[in-house]
């Protein structure tokens, strides 16, 4: 199945759940396993939360945009903001690196995204914003139905 979508919302934390729910519905036709689904949902949640709290400081005005594409069993997604940007992407992707320890961030977001996604890439420029792109390939439906 092929499909494509765009979702855009202002930077408030209530929209984290909206993004998780919408993207979960989007990939439902791929009949993901429980674990595939929860890994995918986690990647979405990490990227969207980062855009809201780090990109836009929860300003409630500027918008986070998610683009999703399904080609057969592969999902390609981007999560973009036009906010603060990341000073040093390599450093930001190190486990435990966070610029917001006082907000109780653990600095594990990128580590989790990289482990659960295929081919995660991050493009960012200070004052211009950040784009996180990743793919996730789901196991074919026929194989899973045979296992059930």
């Amino acid at each position, binding site marked *: 199945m092929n499909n494509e979508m765009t979702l855009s919302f202002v930077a408030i*934390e*209530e929209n*984290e*759940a909206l993004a*998780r729910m919408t993207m979960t519905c989007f990939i439902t036709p791929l009949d993901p396993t*429980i*674990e595939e689904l*929860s*890994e995918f*949902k*986690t990647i979405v*949640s*990490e990227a969207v*939360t980062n855009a*809201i*709290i780090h990109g836009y400081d929860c300003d409630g005005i500027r918008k986070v945009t998610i683009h999703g594409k399904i080609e057969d069993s592969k999902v390609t997604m981007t999560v973009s903001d036009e906010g603060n940007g990341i000073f040093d992407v390599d450093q930001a992707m190190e*486990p435990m690196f966070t610029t917001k320890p006082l*907000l*109780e*961030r*653990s600095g*594990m*977001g990128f*580590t*989790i995204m990289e*482990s*659960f996604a295929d081919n995660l890439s991050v493009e960012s420029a200070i004052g211009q914003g950040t784009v996180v792109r990743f793919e996730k390939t789901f196991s074919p439906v026929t194989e899973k139905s045979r296992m059930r």
Partner: protein
Amino acid sequence: MTDIAITKNGIIVVALRGELGNHEANRIRTQISSEIFSGKVHGVIWDLTHLGFMDSSGIGLILGRMRDLAPQNGETLILNPSATMEKIFQFSGLGTVVRHCNVEKAIGEIGGVLHEQ
């Protein structure tokens, strides 16, 4: 969404339900913290049996409460996370406090350790 109970011997049991992201963590953080600071608490048990979703915000929430507990040498146990959550705990160095058992057994474990001291 969250049930917080305290045993007679000062162990807080936090039963989480639904989803735990940044928004939800921000809503329950102070509630759990104030319970920890309210008396002689020497342990927190996070019961994730009925939690459907968690991201790194859960790590921040749990590590933050471990810091709250540090002055009392309090212990932390995480019960019955899903496979995906367990991976997240392992990446974050919390794999050693994950248990797959019921709350009673976990309370016994914390109580037991204290008893030996």
